[in-house]
């Protein structure tokens, strides 16, 4: 079968790899019909996530048709078209019982801090991902969810990560009616966080980024205010001025380790890896939020250390909330938002690319060429 093959920082290609095997009674094999490149895949692509092994296949956002099931699989059957949450979650451990499906304790041998994630390095469990024709899906009784018959697969694939992550970012903000929410990052997750903030009753939604075409998109898509941080002296002072000099009620970090905007953070976090990615956005968020406010972090950082103003978290009484998204928990509500027409995730898809052209697709997405916002990869065997 064809699958993406990581060869080293910023080098990927498509190769023939063996068809995946059932390794556990609750496994399923899924024929991928759509997969996406996620902003967090860029951390892997750039070689910033420790234990990313050459030969790995990335891809944690995918939907597909069940081709084969293990003897203990009862909840899905061959032929079902399913969306697969990016979390590999057992549904039985204490963390899954508590709804923390991004923190499953039965899916990652290599690290305890994070649960298993498809195609996201051995630090996240060593699973091959969905940027392939076929993929092994563990815990098929729990994770895969049958796509409603009236739902477009392009909407469904964005329910595997992007929409739930943007939604959970807003949820973790604890947004109260009338709150001012500032979202750093106009990438796919930031766009969905902006859209979701209104669902929680925000009074004002502001998005900050440096890429004008993305700002224009989110302004129209999520009816929010947008500002380019390259056009301001100091984003923190700018936000203070915008918010009557008090700061935003909620700040959301929808960027993570690849942030630009501060030379010291860029050099130490992205170029030399002296810290676990550039913490520019987290720094801005902590300093821009009002006293007693909430900073919600869904941007991904590496597992070591980052330079953040933790003293100001204490001094301002900030609540800092973060997690890998528990996709499964959000699905009933988000499926309803799509079916009722309140949110159309597929509107953020700008590029549909054959899986065979994955190297170009990664480069376009990474370098923000051709006004790219979200890329969907279509394997030759997708059949749709």
């Amino acid at each position, binding site marked *: 079968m064809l699958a993406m093959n990581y*060869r*080293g920082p910023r*080098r*990927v*290609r498509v190769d023939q790899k063996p068809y995946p095997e059932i*390794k*556990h*009674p*609750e496994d399923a094999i899924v024929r991928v019909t759509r997969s996406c490149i996620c902003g967090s895949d860029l951390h892997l692509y750039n*070689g910033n996530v*420790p*234990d*990313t*092994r*050459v*030969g*790995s*296949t990335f891809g944690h956002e995918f939907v597909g048709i069940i081709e084969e099931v293990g003897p*203990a699989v009862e909840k899905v059957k061959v032929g079902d078209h399913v969306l697969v949450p990016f979390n*590999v979650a*057992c549904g*039985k*451990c*204490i963390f899954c*019982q*508590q*709804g923390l499906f991004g923190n499953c*304790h*039965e*899916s*990652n*041998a*290599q*690290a*305890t*801090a994070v649960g*298993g994630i498809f195609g996201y390095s*051995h630090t996240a469990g*060593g*699973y*091959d991902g969905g940027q392939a024709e076929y993929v092994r899906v*563990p*815990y098929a009784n729990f994770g895969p969810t049958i796509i409603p018959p009236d739902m477009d697969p392009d909407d469904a694939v964005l329910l595997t990560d992007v929409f739930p992550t943007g939604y959970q970012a807003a*949820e973790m903000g604890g947004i109260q009616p009338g709150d001012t929410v500032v979202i750093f990052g106009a990438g796919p997750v930031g766009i969905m966080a902006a859209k979701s903030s209104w669902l929680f009753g925000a009074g004002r939604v502001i998005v900050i980024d440096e890429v004008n075409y993305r700002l224009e998109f989110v302004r129209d898509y999520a009816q929010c205010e947008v500002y380019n941080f390259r056009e301001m002296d100091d984003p923190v002072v700018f936000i203070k001025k915008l918010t009557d000099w008090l700061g935003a009620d909620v700040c959301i970090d929808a960027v993570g380790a690849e942030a630009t905007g501060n030379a010291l953070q860029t050099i130490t976090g992205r170029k030399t890896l002296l810290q676990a990615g550039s913490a520019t956005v987290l720094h801005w968020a902590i300093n821009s939020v009002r006293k007693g406010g909430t900073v919600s972090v869904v941007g991904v950082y*590496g*597992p*070591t250390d980052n330079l953040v103003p933790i003293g100001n978290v204490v001094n301002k009484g900030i609540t800092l*909330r973060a*997690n890998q998204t*528990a996709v499964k928990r959000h699905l009933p509500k988000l499926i309803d938002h799509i079916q009722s027409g309140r949110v159309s995730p597929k509107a953020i898809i700008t590029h549909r690319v054959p899986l065979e052209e994955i*190297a*170009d*697709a*990664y*480069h*376009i997405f*990474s*370098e923000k*060429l*051709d006004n790219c916002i979200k890329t969907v990869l279509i394997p030759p065997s997708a059949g749709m």
Partner: protein
Amino acid sequence: MENLAAKYTHIKGWGIDADPSNDPTYPLKYHMPTEHDGYNWERPVQQSQDVEVLQSIERPSLPAVFGTSVAPQGLSGQIRRYAFKYSESHYGHWLPLLLADRVNMVEGLVDDLKQGHIPNIFAEKGWKAEWKYNPVGLVTKVATTVLITTAIFAFVTRKKDKR
């Protein structure tokens, strides 16, 4: 709560200010009666291990299910095995893993050549797309690289001439 209170009668004032609504994890986390029972849930069936899987020393055993995408091998594998002697809280864990990733990149090139495959690094880096959507940027990048390489070469050569 009442059951617990009976257990802590020897501590004066135990739980007197407890407020279940003071929960900063809401709505992420449900509270379960079993959450303080430790490593004691009904575990899924254990996946059998047919490849080497490195295991964090912060857990007592393998999880029920694990990934098997690329087993540790070669020099990078040796470095990774060393890294897993340390906890996730230790630089001795993460820095060797980053080193192993870079070594692994070279091993990948050697493996390609051994199999008679000369990797098309320009294609793997997506330069076709760069040429299509950002030709000026690509030309600038190539010209800068050539200039810097030439300058370094000229500098090194000049030093050698002086000797």
